[in-house]
């Protein structure tokens, strides 16, 4: 396959016309900065909730605030912000114009914070306003993604990763629909279903379908690309994505209606998916031709933690463990261990790339630009992983074992890890690294 184009000075080659980029770098960077701040808020809320969670009180206001700050204001906002930049690259189709995209991500981010605040304080107005913004923003960007994915399918550029993003987008819509119903039901009860079952099903679709599904789909493409891992085994990744998405309907439906065999089937599929994803990720690591960085470290950790959560869920569904004791550690493992960890690791990579492209791309080929590695905050990335890993372990052990102080210590370490991410993003966005060398020729107007 080749693309040929004549490139006279000042003209665009055919190849460049075909290359599709995302919106201006400030939009996804701003979304990622806001998301990283929301992670700090979520981790603080988690620290407040940690002792309650360890004592088995799962439905407190701090727990609800934690779940929605992490799930919406951090993870969903970060995923959507990164998707604006990455999806055009993966499927070679543009997603949305800058203003509609900005409106949609602002709706999700702001709505997530308002919804969390409303759930924490019980203020119906905040719940209604936040829920409306989240559903509207999420549905809008979901529609943009569906349109782009449809075009990619028609153009033959969808690929396995694109298919995974399409499935994850479907789960996002299911999560938003369920969340909207639950928020309305909280203000004016009309659903006859048990509240805890509804929450469990909502969480399963959000954490496994939307967040986990996106992570697996994006990792299929970016993992080998960033690690320079050519020749790695591809099939385990594709099958991991298929099993991962296949696990969502039985899990959610089983949790909703209280059908143990369905939950067990879903948990078994998720266990297989995690094993395959781990096989794929280790294959990438083994075939990599450069230093391992924070994103791949978090991907390995997150996949392993998700696998442990899936096994615990399977054992609970089979009656070997108490489902009520297992539910919270499993949800935390998926939300924090997989979702927050992998997303944080990714921020260390994607934000420098966005900023470099926005500020220095016009210097490519003529010198004077810093290396992208000069923007990568390696010490902060190392510190983040060093704080996150034991923090997560302590949190999960404390909650699972009913040891409040251990859960609190773990959550505080996660606050520190989240602060590392915020500082790193700020350093990259606001920093001005010294150019690597003087320009060889005067730079043209950017």
């Amino acid at each position: 396959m080749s693309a040929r184009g004549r490139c006279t000075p000042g003209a665009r080659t055919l190849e460049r016309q075909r290359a599709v980029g995302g919106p201006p770098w400030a939009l996804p960077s701003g979304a990622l900065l806001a998301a990283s701040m929301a992670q700090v808020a979520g981790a603080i809320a988690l620290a407040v909730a940690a002792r309650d969670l360890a004592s088995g009180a799962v439905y407190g206001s701090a727990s609800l605030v934690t779940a929605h700050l992490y799930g919406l204001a951090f993870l969903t906002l970060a995923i959507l912000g990164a998707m604006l930049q990455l999806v055009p690259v993966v499927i070679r189709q543009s997603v949305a114009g800058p203003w509609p995209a900005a409106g949609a991500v602002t709706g999700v981010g702001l709505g997530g914070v308002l919804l969390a605040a409303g759930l924490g304080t019980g203020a119906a107005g905040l719940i209604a306003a936040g829920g409306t913004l989240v559903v509207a923003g999420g549905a809008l960007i979901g529609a943009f993604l569906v349109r782009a994915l449809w075009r990619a399918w028609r153009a033959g550029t969808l690929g396995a990763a694109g298919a995974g993003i399409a499935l994850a987008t479907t789960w996002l819509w299911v999560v938003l629909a369920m969340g909207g119903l639950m928020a309305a039901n909280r203000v004016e009860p009309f659903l006859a279903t048990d509240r805890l079952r509804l929450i469990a099903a909502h969480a399963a679709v959000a954490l496994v379908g939307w967040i986990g599904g996106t992570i697996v789909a994006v990792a299929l493409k970016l993992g080998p690309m960033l690690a320079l891992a050519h020749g790695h085994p591809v099939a385990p990744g594709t099958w991991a994505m298929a099993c991962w998405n296949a696990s969502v309907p039985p899990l959610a439906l089983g949790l909703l209606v209280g059908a143990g065999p369905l939950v067990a089937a879903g948990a078994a599929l998720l266990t297989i998916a995690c094993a395959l994803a781990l096989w794929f990720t280790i294959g990438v690591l083994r075939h990599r031709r450069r230093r391992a960085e924070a994103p791949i470290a978090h991907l390995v950790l997150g996949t392993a933690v998700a696998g442990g959560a899936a096994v615990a869920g399977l054992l609970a569904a089979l009656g070997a463990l108490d489902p009520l004791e297992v539910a919270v550690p499993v949800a935390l493992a998926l939300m924090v261990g997989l979702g927050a960890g992998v997303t944080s690791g990714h921020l260390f990579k994607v934000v420098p790339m966005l900023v470099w492209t926005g500020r220095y791309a016009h210097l490519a080929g003529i010198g004077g630009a810093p290396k992208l590695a000069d923007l990568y905050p390696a010490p902060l990335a190392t510190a983040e992983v060093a704080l996150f890993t034991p923090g997560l372990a302590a949190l999960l052990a404390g909650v699972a074992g009913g040891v409040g102080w251990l859960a609190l210590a773990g959550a505080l370490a996660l606050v520190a890890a989240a602060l590392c991410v915020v500082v790193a993003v700020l350093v990259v966005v606001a920093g001005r690294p010294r150019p690597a060398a003087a320009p060889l020729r005067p730079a043209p107007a950017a």
Partner: protein
Amino acid sequence: MTEDEAWAALARVVDPELGVDIVELGLVYGLEVGPERVKVTMTLTSQGCPLHGVIVDGVERALERPGGPDVEIEMVWDPPWDPDRIGSSGRRALGDPTTT
């Protein structure tokens, strides 16, 4: 422009993500330098590289000269790029674990 000058210019185009120039990375498959046209046949480390446009623009800028030959870039994916094409100094810079 001589062929040596063209290669030297291409060696100033750095893959920003990897921090290694495209010649050292083995991304340049061919170079033809004539009075009217400079043609570069090249690839990228993977299709769908997020920095595709940046690198192509960089090659164009590196070879452009006022009143000089036109620059033609042919992007090919066959043969696919492989990390074994990276030179030894590039591998060391990347921290390639297979480098002893």
